[in-house]
């Protein structure tokens, strides 16, 4: 490549991410002058066609935003609509929701760890190639993923777009005996999840540091999944270092989405700064609430002591945090099953009333916010969905820029190597851009 020509190279699609988009990079010397993640997923207009629907429908309808995390959409929708109607779901119904969500965390995080992310650390193109190198590891991953699917299938009817969730709870709740077979399976899954943590902790991680503000729900006493208060942990260098929280009803004042010309996904900023939601943020904000044996594993995996507020800022290590979260979800699922007593009714009544409701839960990839406004008969008049990947887009672009600059500072690199490295930097955040997007194609423009 000649020193002073500017060129744009289509380097092929960014693969092993969910949904489709493009990464465009402009280089001048060893500086990345611009890094843009464009999401080309055709727009599907959920927020528009939700208007005019009944308030009972968004849990089923919005699950179709994302086949990877449908439970997250169902849970955020239920919480927002129940908030609008002034209803709180507690007790065993809330516990069953957490169990269902744990199922999705296990299967979705394991899918990312084994099928999408791990091949990067072995230089493999996919899981089939990885399976040839290390059959036992891949078999363990598939078995673990299956355990998560089994929870969602039992409680929800099927693992993709489960049918059993409704406002106020479920259409049908299981008897204690129905949950018993899950326990056997989850005991095995606990061993598999622990082995997964040890496996991924042994990978070779490139050096990298990010400086995004972390953003996750927090709920004292537990590792927040299906409820909590929005909490911000500022990056080193931010004006104020103290963590801060705000009420969910103020979400739209703090997290502001804006549109960029190169993407069908809206991008969000938090109080005017770049932020990151997802595993790294949750670990930093809720890590102290992990049970002691998982905190011990985190220490062994070189993530520091979560009880002392350990923070992991190397995005390549997110795979280790994700593995810890899978182990936590397996243990939580076992706990909920052990403590389960069937509730008196499968759901509580949620009568319609006029108003606006807010709901947020921790999707596997990060905080997912829904807001609905209803009129008195329960017709939806306004709907807002803020998925984690739209929040993380700015952080992903910045990570790609940093990782490539670090590589270029170390010496010349081929376009193929840069492409592979930037794909890895994107994959670190398990982006799920089907919520808005298409074709991740990488193009590099060099200005030297």
């Amino acid at each position, binding site marked *: 490549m000649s020193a002073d020509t500017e060129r744009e190279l289509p380097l092929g*699609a960014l*693969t*092993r*991410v*969910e949904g489709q988009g493009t990464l465009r990079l402009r280089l001048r010397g060893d500086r990345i002058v611009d890094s843009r993640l464009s999401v080309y997923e*055709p*727009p*599907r*207009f*959920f*927020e*528009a*066609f939700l*208007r005019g*629907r*009944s308030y009972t*429908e968004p849990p*089923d309808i919005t699950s*179709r*935003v*994302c*086949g*990877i995390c*449908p439970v997250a959409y169902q849970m955020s929708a239920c919480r927002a609509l129940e908030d609008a109607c002034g209803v709180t779901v507690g007790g065993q119904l809330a516990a069953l929701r957490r169990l269902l969500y744990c199922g999705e965390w296990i299967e979705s995080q394991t*899918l990312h760890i084994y*099928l*999408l992310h791990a*091949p990067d650390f072995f230089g493999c*193109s*996919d*899981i*089939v190639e990885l*399976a*040839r190198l290390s059959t036992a590891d891949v*078999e363990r991953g*598939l*078995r673990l993923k*299956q355990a998560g*699917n089994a929870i969602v299938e039992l409680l929800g*009817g*099927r*693992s*993709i*777009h489960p*049918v*059993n969730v*409704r406002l106020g709870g*479920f*259409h*049908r709740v299981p008897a204690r005996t129905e949950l018993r077979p899950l326990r056997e399976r989850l005991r095995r899954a606990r061993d598999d999840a622990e082995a997964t943590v040890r496996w991924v902790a042994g990978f070779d991680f490139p050096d990298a540091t990010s400086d995004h503000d972390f953003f996750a729900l927090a709920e004292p006493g537990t590792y927040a999944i299906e409820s909590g208060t929005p909490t911000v942990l500022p990056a080193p260098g931010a004006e104020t270092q103290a963590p801060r929280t705000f009420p969910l009803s103020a979400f739209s004042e703090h997290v502001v989405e*804006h*549109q960029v*010309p*190169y993407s*069908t996904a809206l991008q969000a900023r938090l109080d005017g700064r770049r932020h990151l939601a997802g595993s790294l943020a949750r670990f930093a904000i809720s890590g102290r609430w992990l049970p002691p044996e998982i905190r011990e594993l985190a220490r062994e995996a070189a993530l520091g002591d979560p009880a002392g507020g350990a923070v992991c800022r190397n995005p390549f290590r997110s795979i280790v945090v994700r593995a810890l979260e899978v182990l936590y979800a397996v243990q939580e699922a076992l706990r909920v099953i052990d403590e389960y007593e069937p509730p008196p009714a*499968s759901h509580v009544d949620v009568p319609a009333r006029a108003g606006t409701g807010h709901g947020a839960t921790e999707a596997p990839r990060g905080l997912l916010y829904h807001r609905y406004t209803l009129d008195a008969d329960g017709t939806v008049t306004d709907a807002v969905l803020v998925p984690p990947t739209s929040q993380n887009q700015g952080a992903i672009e910045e990570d790609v820029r940093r990782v490539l600059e670090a590589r270029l500072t170390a010496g010349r690199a081929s376009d193929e190597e840069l492409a592979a490295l930037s*794909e890895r930097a994107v994959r670190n955040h398990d982006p*799920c851009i*089907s919520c808005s997007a298409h074709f*991740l194609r990488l193009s590099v423009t060099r200005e030297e």
Partner: protein
Amino acid sequence: MSDEEPEDARPRLAVWKFASCDGCQLTLLDCEDDLLALSGKVEVAFFHEAVTAPDEGTYDVSLVDGSITTPEDAERVQHVRAVSRRLVTLGACATAGGIQALRNYADVAEFRAAVYARDEYIDTLATSTPISAHVPVDFELRGCPIDRGQLLEVITAYLAGRTPDTPAHSVCFECKRRGTPCIVVARGIPCLGPVTHAGCGALCPAYGRGCYGCFGPSYSTKFPAFIPLLRRDGMTTLDIVRVLRTFNTAAPEFDAASRQEELG
């Protein structure tokens, strides 16, 4: 595992994505037990979500997820057809246009302005259409999402050179087979089972809920006889229009019935 056979002897499989939630192609990755066995029999040659490999050459079977909603995708599906010996659509989006076909009843410019502040950046078609509206399709799998067993049946059938065997009768048959008492008869819960295509295994009634039609119309829908039953069980005109206008809203039978219902 693939080590036993030379790679180029295996049929080539491709997975393509258009407007969708990714759930149907994810079903392929959900075939955990069968995934590695399957990978020994077919070469998964092109599958963005799971495999880093470029689109090259031709494919024995193409699985297509998603509907056509942009001018580029209308072009791209022609390419998919041209390089595929067999083209199978996966699920409600690819087979019937999906939930995003709700735009077909609205003004898409208004939709665009409702979601995006600067709607001139967004290039989209006024309608969401199934793959069959653009190119010939060899087989259509139903469902939102598709059923894992049916997906494996289709792939296995094409590998064996036979026609896939997926029943086209209604969900009612599946309730009978599953031994679920009819929730309409026993509990008065409205249910789309009698007009909905089989394939899910009659999940919703087993969970105490009426079928909501996510597999689209069965091969014999008699809406003039069926709609009064929904009314008898408490549904209003608006309820009926809404339940028909979800994930298979653009399937011709559901579309016609919902328009008829609106006219009154």
